[in-house]
């Protein structure tokens, strides 16, 4: 099936060329980072995880959200998702690949990454995260590819795939839960020390992931002959709506607990995020943009008339994705370090090379996604023809 990747329109090839350009720039700067060290980024003694790890965290969510199409289709036999499960699974594959790449680019000694396997350490959450992420990647590649290959031959998928599909459902939940535990189990990092970290992660993931999937469906409809139809898009829109509401609700819980208890160590991080602390307000405009986008998306999504209008729905999905990217891909990680355990406020600004490496990884992810979607859609077009 992979040969489908090599045949495409001009538009397809220009898109590929566009991605390759960004990948190339990213690789160039990554080589410079390897040479100079992570000091090439904006990270500092006090802010030791930033853009890279935040992207990783955000993308784990996008990967996990594939369960939102797999579960209704396989568990509840919701036929309308039949056409898009493969899109969900391949989106998961591309996202997990990006996650792994972001972890690698964040390592100070990437050549020693295999120490993770040579000295397995079950007390470390990173060890478990490595297991669940790689397992999830494997599950989705195997399931997606096998089911698609059978569709191509118009035969039912082999029996052994079913159990894998059922395993992949709780497994999706596990990847984001374990990722939340990386943060939620650390003493002295009050911003992350909250039991609802995992539920919050899941809620925001189930909003941002399906929002992206809706956008991808709409894009595919516009540029290819592949049409998912209206129903799955509308069902996804409802999922996004509920997940967004829950996500906002959970953030509200957090804010109540922090500000009603008035424990300074817990309040300071939120103050830094939304109001600035001692004149440091690098993230304040971003966070308010996130709030505004979430609010606007909520209005568009809750109202059935606007939700059913696909152009407005697209706007809402962009807003959801943007809002949650700011919340998780920007605010969540950095703010855990501000102020530092010693009360220092060190602002973090990503550097040019850091941004370009980040874009390079994203481009790599979209490259993988494009290739996988190209295969899937060529197969589906072939069947319909």
């Amino acid at each position, binding site marked *: 099936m992979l040969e489908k990747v090599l045949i495409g329109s001009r538009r397809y090839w220009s898109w590929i060329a566009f991605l390759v350009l960004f990948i190339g720039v990213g690789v160039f700067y990554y080589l410079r980072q390897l040479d100079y060290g992570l000091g090439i980024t904006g990270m500092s003694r006090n802010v030791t995880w930033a853009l890279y790890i935040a992207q990783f965290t955000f993308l784990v969510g996008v990967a996990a959200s594939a369960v939102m199409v797999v579960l209704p289709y396989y568990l509840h036999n919701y036929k309308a998702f039949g056409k898009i499960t493969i899109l969900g699974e391949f989106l998961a594959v591309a996202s997990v690949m990006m996650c792994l790449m972001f972890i690698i680019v964040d390592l100070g000694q990437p050549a020693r990454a295999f120490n993770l396997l040579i000295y397995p350490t079950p007390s470390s959450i990173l*060890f478990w995260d490595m297991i669940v992420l790689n397992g999830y990647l494997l599950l989705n590649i195997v399931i997606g590819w096998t089911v698609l290959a059978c569709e191509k031959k118009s035969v039912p998928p082999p029996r052994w795939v079913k159990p894998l599909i059922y395993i992949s459902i709780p497994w999706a939940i596990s990847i984001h839960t374990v990722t939340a535990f990386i943060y939620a189990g650390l003493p002295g990092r009050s911003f992350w020390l909250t039991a609802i970290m995992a539920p919050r992660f899941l809620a925001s993931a189930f909003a941002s992931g399906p929002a992206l999937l809706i956008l991808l469906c709409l894009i595919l409809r516009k540029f290819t002959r592949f049409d998912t139809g209206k129903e799955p898009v509308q069902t996804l829109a409802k999922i996004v709506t509920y997940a967004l509401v829950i996500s906002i609700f959970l953030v509200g819980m957090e804010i109540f607990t922090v500000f009603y208890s008035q424990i300074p160590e817990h309040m300071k991080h939120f103050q830094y995020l939304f109001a600035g602390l001692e004149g440091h307000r690098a993230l304040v405009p971003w966070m308010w943009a996130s709030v505004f986008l979430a609010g606007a998306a909520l209005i568009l999504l809750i109202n059935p008339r606007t939700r059913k209008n696909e152009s407005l729905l697209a706007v809402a999905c962009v807003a959801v994705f943007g809002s949650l990217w700011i919340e998780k891909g920007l605010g969540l990680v950095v703010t855990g370090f501000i102020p530092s355990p010693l009360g220092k406020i060190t602002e973090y600004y990503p550097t040019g090379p850091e941004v370009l490496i980040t874009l390079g990884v994203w481009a790599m992810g979209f490259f993988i996604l494009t290739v996988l979607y190209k295969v899937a859609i060529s197969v589906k077009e072939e069947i319909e023809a």
Partner: protein
Amino acid sequence: MKSSRRTFLKITGLSLMGWGAKPVLEVLARNESSKILKPPEALKAKRWAMVINSRRCPHGCTDCIQACHNIHNVPDFGNEKDEIKWIWHERFGDAFPGQEHPYIQAGVKERPVLVLCNHCENPPCVRVCPTQATFKRAEDGIVMMDYHRCIGCRFCIAGCPYGARSMNYRDPRPFIKKINPAFPTRTKGVVEKCNFCVERLAAGLLPACVVACKEKALFFGDLGNPDSDVRKLLRAHFTIRRKPELGTQPQVYYIV
């Protein structure tokens, strides 16, 4: 089990191949590497601990810091972003958050507080490290690092509630004023911190900071020995520890 491992190391001379940093550091601490067992003069303890009498710390004195950083090849990048430090001064209110109030005893607030890795009894940095590059030595509780195993993921930095750890964001070697050949330098991309001078203890010497302090503000000793200096001080004075509520059980005690 321990002795059989040591015999094995002696026989094969594989001690530098990453079988844990313990033998490695012991080798490095002694110049003739034929003997891996500890020399007879080595200082031993059930539980090493430090007592800091910050009342004795005069303003502006940095003897202990200089001694430590020189001996351990700690680089000076000249900027806060990439900064690496093992032992340094903090404001009282930053070292002991929540302990400061407007009517506090005169002098306490202004006095610099010396901070370093607490060699916690229950160290979160060890718990989170995915490669065991950070580990607690079973025999005396020192929290140590294997710089050859660390992958630079910085999980330990997120895990340490005391800001005791630093990352080598760049190659540190060009920024070391005078390299001490008796102690390893680090590469870029690994984390480092105070090691309670394991290499000196193995050679029968007290930690460099303790020796360098002319004011006798630092004390080092064995908590397992009721007659040790640190136990005597802990009996005679009211002492506090940093963030005791976190359950990490810091082994650096302060007389304030």
